[in-house]
């Protein structure tokens, strides 16, 4: 197992190396450099990337690190809340769908899930805006807080700062602004996790030991919590990487539509303004983070759910 972990780390380092080459290629495409200077400029560029010295943005003249500290927390809020919600709702929903397999509840929900899977996120956002903001004026169309409110910038995370201001109007305003983006973002990961846990639970339910547990007369919830959950997690976690990558794509789209002040909006405006240092730094940060999470999840699965201890089912 140690050798496996070491090999994964080697993989991580080599892919990071390839990442720096790819980003340097993009940099050279956008700011051409003579052939003789290719290697030294590559070394200096990689060094500045790895020490997080991203330089200054062409549009504002401010250091990119400072701006990233402004924009990254807002995107992180969306990401964590979406992931939490989709896992907390998706896994129980998938298990219950598997319990009532082939019932009306199961079939109708599967159809709805298929429809949701094929709905483009941006169209869903537009629909929600049209339904809830224009026709029935409940939710606002943009931003993460009504700009007439003033909150102290304590942590940088808008949600936490709004709670810290102890003003119920501001908290309510922040939650209302949060609703529509979170709703449109959670739908896709939610249905993915639900379908994954449903198919995994169906597999697990066919094994003998589960039938033996049921014959003891325990409740469904107990079985779900104690036995099924830890057996379906190795089926779900490998798919989380792809889920996360797609989620980042969706976040960029949703941020652009709802004008949420996060990384997505920043990167699209940097492409429009031809602000290339910003684009390269964001690509580096996002790709490096996703790569690391990728390798980390693989390592976690091998440590906590080794193949020997897994239920012998073809997952």
């Amino acid at each position: 197992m140690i050798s496996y972990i070491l090999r994964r780390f080697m993989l991580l380092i080599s892919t990071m190396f390839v990442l720096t080459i790819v980003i340097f290629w993009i940099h050279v495409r956008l700011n051409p450099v003579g052939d003789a200077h290719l290697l030294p400029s590559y070394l200096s560029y990689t060094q500045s990337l790895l020490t997080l010295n991203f330089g200054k943005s062409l549009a504002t003249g401010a250091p990119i690190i400072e701006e990233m500290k402004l924009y990254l927390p807002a995107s992180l809020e969306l990401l964590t809340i979406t992931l939490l919600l989709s896992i907390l709702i998706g896994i129980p929903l998938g298990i219950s769908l598997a319990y009532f397999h082939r019932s009306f509840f199961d079939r109708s929900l599967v159809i709805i899930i298929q429809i949701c899977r094929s709905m483009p996120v941006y169209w869903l956002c537009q629909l929600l805006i049209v339904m809830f903001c224009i026709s029935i004026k409940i939710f606002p169309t943009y931003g993460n807080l009504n700009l007439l409110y003033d909150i102290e910038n304590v942590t940088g995370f808008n949600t936490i700062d709004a709670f810290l201001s102890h003003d119920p109007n501001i908290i309510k305003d922040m939650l209302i602004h949060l609703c529509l983006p979170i709703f449109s973002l959670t739908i896709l990961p939610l249905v993915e996790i639900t379908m994954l846990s449903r198919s995994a639970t169906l597999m697990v339910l066919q094994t003998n030991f589960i039938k033996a547990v049921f014959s003891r007369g325990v409740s469904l919830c107990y079985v779900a919590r104690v036995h099924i959950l830890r057996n379906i997690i190795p089926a779900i976690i490998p798919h989380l990487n792809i889920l996360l990558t797609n989620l980042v794509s969706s976040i960029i789209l949703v941020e652009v539509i709802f004008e949420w002040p996060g990384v997505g909006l920043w990167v699209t405006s940097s492409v429009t303004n031809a602000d290339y240092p910003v684009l390269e730094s964001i690509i580096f940060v996002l790709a490096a983070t996703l790569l690391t999470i990728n390798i980390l999840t693989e390592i976690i699965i091998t440590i906590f759910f080794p193949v020997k201890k897994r239920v012998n089912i073809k997952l």
Partner: protein
Amino acid sequence: MFIQHDRKTDIPSNTSLIWQIYKRRSFDVLGLYLLITLLALIFILPLIINIDPYLQNPEATFLPPSWIEGGEFRHFFGTDEFGRDFLARLLLGAQNTLQSAFLATLLAMLLGSCIGFMSAISRRSAQRSFLHHMFDIISSIPSILLALISVAIFSPSLSHAMLAISLSLVPRFIHATYFAVCHELSKDYITSNMLDGASYLRLTRDTILPNILDIIAKNFYQGLSIAIIDISAIGFLGFGAQPPIPELGNMLASGMDLFFIGSYMALIPGISIMLFVISINLVGHGLHRVLEAGVSHGFSRH
């Protein structure tokens, strides 16, 4: 006397076997009919109607659909702010989106399957690992971000968006093909064929390829639906096909501006994207079942 009931045991042909297995799920059949209708609509209808989607008609701007008062039958779905017929633009836009998505997935499939295949059959572990993980960087960069990079380097256009999406689909083909071929290579009949002296080319053509076809088909239809949604997402942001070239994404974006005049212009492109993706998913699911049944002797998993 004994009446002999001759039970002619018909061995069904391949085509009717495919249809029999496909027919088992009625939803897949529904999807097939839907897909055929949609494809016929978008490719054959423009030839019949024969309205130029680029023709601007200043007298007939903002016409509502023909079933609402004030609409004309000639412009069935009404016109946009330039007097261009909405239905003609919708059909042309659907053609553009679908063609570029199909091309993107096809390219990705060819490239990805070749690389995955070669990495699976290579004997040297360094080469195998390199080919397998070569595109892992691409899989860790979100597809929209890849499209933004290609727009920054090249100019925004439909073909550049298509290339970016194609690149983002390659890793899944590599991984899928790699695992499928590895699984195949561990089987006994491969070893016996190799002992018989079959070259790799013969092995591929006769033995491996037909058996991994279901995995490739599954990734193809999933990739196609992802490609449709992503290409129209890039068009929605304004980085894909530039106006006046219609494409479902940028028609959706321009429909939202005119929402106050007619909501149909924002709804219809979105509904069409959804219908395409649903029908492709259903047909793909059915095809996957058929191919898989061919592989595992009629054993159905669901």
